[in-house]
């Protein structure tokens, strides 16, 4: 089937969205952006394809009235698939690490290190299924994050009991991880799905009866070729995007169109990203009518919250809940990231409460964002709020207040998948380009 791919190369993460001919999102994928943008694009795109595959599985199982609890089954299948992916990458990592054992540094201890590595990876492989067990909480879904923390933990133990310096094991890891992370996923996707399916069918007794039918349905879904009919990429200007000119659209346009796809009635879009803020006005067709950006200064953006979290020794996700406890937000007039620490310490020493300061900070961030929105043309119903900060309940609370006070009753849209807004818009551009719906782009 025809699919249209949109890829958004952000400063922190790269997103991809797959759209079908009926403008339905079949899949989306995300990966952390790294130095090699072409790889990030490929990985995100494949993640979207995987997700798309699951959508096809769901459709196949639904259409054929499979005798199985869909969400549970597909959940298990996905976990099994991720496990297969993880194991594959672990193999790659092990081989690469072993390959690093050369040179003077390892001269005397080469075989010891090899043995230790083998032990480390044995343990990693053994515990891997746990990581993907139902209900397991992972700090992150990115290979580097998961593998890294577990590797460090095991390597420390193993090195100690083997009487080897820990940093030797660290060294080979550090040298390998980037390479492994940047290697495009190998192996046939279909085979991975089949192996995953095998795991699930053998593990889950509830589906044993329906197993042969399920296998047929899955195979029928796998047989559908997700053809990448057209691709459009977008992302930050300073990046040399790994696409040719006809396949690039500005991130502002993609963002505006993506918001329109999610909420056709929206006219004003606010995006607070990691390091910039965009205020976008769109018309009824999702075309951008006006925009303002603040891209010179990260004050009030995601990074700012990151610094605050660091200063307060808290997790980023804990800031919002703590700020929610306050009913007397401190008046904070500057969200300068550089002085965030000093301002914080000053206020704490003056006796102000943490939650009040945090609430004040969240208000300051929103005020700053509203400045950008004001300059872009104000707020016209409906209002859509996207970006990482949109997940912060304290920020959302302040936003609702400010909008109510100054613009009255406005519908505020916040989508948990808003991080895909840009990629969604890009995918829609891809679809339109393919259909020859003229958007005026150069031939």
């Amino acid at each position, binding site marked *: 089937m025809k699919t249209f791919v949109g890829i958004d190369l952000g400063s922190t993460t790269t997103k991809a969205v797959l759209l079908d001919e009926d403008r339905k999102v079949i899949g989306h994928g995300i990966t952390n952006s790294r130095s090699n943008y072409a790889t990030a694009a490929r990985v995100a795109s494949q993640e979207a394809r995987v997700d798309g595959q699951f959508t096809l599985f769901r459709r196949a199982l639904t259409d054929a009235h499979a005798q199985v609890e869909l969400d549970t089954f597909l959940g298990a299948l996905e976990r099994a698939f991720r496990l297969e992916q993880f194991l594959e990458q672990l193999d790659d990592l092990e081989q690469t690490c072993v390959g690093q054992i050369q040179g003077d540094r390892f001269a005397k201890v080469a075989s010891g290190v090899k043995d230790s590595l083998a032990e480390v990876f044995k343990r990693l492989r053994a515990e891997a299924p746990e990581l993907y067990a139902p209900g397991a909480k992972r700090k992150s879904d990115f290979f580097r994050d998961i593998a890294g923390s577990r590797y460090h933990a095991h390597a420390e133990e193993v090195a100690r009991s083997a009487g080897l310096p820990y940093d030797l094991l660290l060294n080979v890891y550090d040298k390998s991880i980037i390479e492994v992370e940047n290697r495009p996923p190998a192996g046939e996707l279909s085979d991975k799905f089949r192996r995953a399916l095998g795991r699930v069918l053998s593990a889950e007794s509830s589906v044993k009866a329906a197993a042969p039918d399920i296998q047929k349905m899955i195979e029928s879904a796998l047989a559908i070729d997700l053809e990448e009919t057209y691709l459009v990429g977008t992302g930050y200007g300073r990046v040399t995007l790994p696409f040719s000119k006809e396949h690039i659209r500005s991130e502002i346009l993609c963002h505006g169109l993506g918001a329109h796809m999610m909420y056709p009635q929206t006219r004003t879009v606010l995006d607070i990203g990691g390091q910039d803020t965009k205020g976008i006005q769109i018309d009824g067709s999702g075309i951008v009518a006006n925009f303002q950006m603040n891209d010179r200064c990260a004050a009030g953006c995601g990074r700012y919250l990151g610094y605050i979290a660091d200063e307060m020794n808290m997790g980023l996700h804990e800031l919002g809940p703590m700020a929610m406890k306050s009913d007397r937000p401190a008046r904070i007039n*500057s969200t300068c990231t550089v002085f965030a620490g000093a301002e914080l310490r000053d206020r704490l020493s003056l006796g102000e409460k943490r939650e009040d300061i945090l609430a004040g900070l969240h208000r300051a961030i929103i*005020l700053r964002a509203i400045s950008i929105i*004001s300059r872009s*043309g104000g707020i016209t119903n409906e209002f859509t709020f996207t970006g990482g900060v949109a997940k912060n309940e304290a920020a959302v609370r302040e936003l609702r207040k400010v909008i109510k006070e100054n613009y009255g009753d406005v519908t505020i849209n916040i989508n948990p998948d808003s991080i895909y807004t840009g990629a969604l818009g890009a995918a829609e551009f891809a679809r339109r380009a393919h259909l020859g719906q003229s958007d005026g782009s150069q031939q």
Partner: protein
Amino acid sequence: MATPVNVSPTAEIVARANELFEDLSFNSARKWKAAQPDRKVIGYMPIYVPREIIHAAGMLPLGIVGGGDQLEVIHGDAYYQSYICRIPRSTIELGVSGRLDFVDGMLFPSICDVIRNLSGMWKLMFPHVYSRYFDVPQNYRDDTGGNFYINELAELRLALSELRGKPISDDELRQSIALYNENRKLVRELYALRVERPWQAPAAEVYLMVRAGLVLPVEEHSALLREYLAAARAEERPKRDNCRIVLTGMFCEQPPLNLIKSLELSGCYVVDDDLMLVTRWLIGDVPVEGDPLQNLALAFLHHSESTAAKYEPNQKEKGQHLVRAVKRSGAEGVIFAAPSFCDPALLDRPMLQHVLKDAGIPYIAFKYAENSGQMQPIREQAGTFADSIKLWSAA
């Protein structure tokens, strides 16, 4: 707020002034307007307008100096980029939020390009309000700048006459001039008291008393000043071991009140400043006899204060007004405090600093915004400055 029983008379007067200061809806001016039919209010921005003409038309001159640190700017930011000072955006905020909906006219004096351009913006945004850019001469010859200015004043007089529906007579102008002479005299007296005994007239209080003059009818303000002068002279307050400084650069966007308080808390008596220059712009009395417009013009040309927005034709004179202010008020140093992005204050500063250096007068400099929240750096700088002055004078 109810005044506690044993509050000093000074505190009670200051509380009244503070209430006026904090009222961003200008209720006292609204009440004044509502008290009689056909009353009009004319707003004006820094640095100077001839309020006498407005008063002579039976109208209330209302000084607008931005929204201060209690006003959140939401809509105003749609009009200005981040590298422009805050006073125009908070002024627009006051406008679009309806807080100035009772104001019938706005005067924008020639102080800088931002306020200049704001005059044009105001015409577009509030077309039903009489808006005027008030150009003052940079040529000080009677027959050149003087004539130009007299014609400017005549245009203003005519416009306000039309707004009122009745011409403004020379006698009305003379009476207004007399009242404003009196008011200026009282403000000078207040400043003189502060020079003489700064602990009796703390800078923050003096500020509130003078600031009240921006919203009160001149007669009421003069009465208030007399009250405060009497009370402040009578009340015994502890003397502090503060050094004496002149504050300069704050002639337009105003500092938060906390900033002024912080300066005194860190060891500096403010013995002179250029806050709200309009209240003291004309030095000495304007003659009450004769042609009032001519008198106002001549007073402007030859007996007015110096500031960054005013051209100094004589190189030798440049900056000397500051040296004289220091000497006159017995000050030991100068604090240059300018709003961020303020062209007049920041461009003038290096020249003024050279003059001070030649005269052996120490100084420090910092920037602020009308909504600055961080007083710690200000306290540190001012405190260090005060200490170093004391050390040097002891040596």
